[in-house]
């Protein structure tokens, strides 16, 4: 028997992390939203983490969403401790945020060797970056980048399924090592 898998959802401000977890969670989401004191293009921001749970094909998953602002980078580190997968969300209509997403990604992956997937949100918009273009931008294999609408639970489940496909081979080898 395996316990629940811990997955982390990260990305810059406004990428859709909290929305993604709210759309997917089967339990009431624990969030730590406060009103921002500066103009960040929305009326709430996460200061500690979001937490939700769900089952995917019978597998219990725990989702931890990070704050998006750089001053909370210590939370990226804390939340990624022991995580088995990372969902890195970027808003497909905000390419100006891509360098920031790269910064978060490098911060996390330099400290935690965690399998990841990049989710390009806002695919419902008419003018938005395609996942393939984002993969080229980040120089990632196409299998590591998916497009989604963070408000859509089906999209969210598809994103997590793709991540778990990337996690599984490593999960098994880690179990053997232990």
């Amino acid at each position, binding site marked *: 028997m395996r316990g629940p898998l811990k997955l982390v959802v990260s990305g810059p401000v406004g990428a859709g992390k909290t929305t993604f977890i709210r759309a997917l969670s089967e339990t009431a989401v*624990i*969030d*730590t939203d*406060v*009103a*921002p*004191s*500066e103009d960040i293009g929305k009326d709430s*921001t996460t*200061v*500690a*983490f979001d937490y939700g749970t769900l089952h995917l094909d019978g597998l219990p998953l725990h989702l931890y969403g990070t*704050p998006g*602002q750089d*001053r*909370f980078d*210590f*939370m990226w580190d804390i939340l990624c401790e022991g995580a088995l997968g990372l969902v890195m969300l970027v808003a497909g209509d905000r390419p100006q945020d891509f360098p920031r997403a790269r910064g978060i990604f490098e911060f996390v992956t330099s400290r935690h060797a965690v399998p990841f997937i990049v989710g390009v949100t806002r695919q419902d918009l008419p003018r938005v970056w395609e996942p393939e273009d984002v993969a080229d931008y980040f120089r990632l294999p196409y299998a590591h980048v998916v497009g989604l609408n963070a408000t859509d639970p089906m999209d969210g489940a598809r994103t997590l399924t793709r991540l778990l496909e990337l996690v599984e081979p490593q999960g098994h080898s880690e179990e053997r090592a232990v």
Partner: protein
Amino acid sequence: MTSTMSKQEVLSSTLAALRANLPELKGVLVATADGLPMAQSMNAGTDANRVAAMAATALGLGKRIGDTVGNGVLTEMSVSGTDGQVFFYAAGRGVLAVVAPAGMNLGLLLMEARDAAANIATVL
């Protein structure tokens, strides 16, 4: 008094009074609920920006913990170690952080810090 003073003046004078009344403190700071520093008097070697962000995180987490166990409205949260303690106070839309070394007069600290937080809350 506060009606004639700007927010910044109230914050600065409140922190200065706290420092003067409790000279052993290692630092005091006021941050917004989303972790931006507004006023601070921290000893050298402590990154005020980082403490401000952590104060917001601590308060945000403290609120959720309080909600979960039915604590009512959050007033303060503390972190204790062998060499000192940090107290975080809800202060209106902001948070007051008080960094204390081990062995301080805690009764006096709690009284002074709560008064300071109440004072800060009047302008935030």
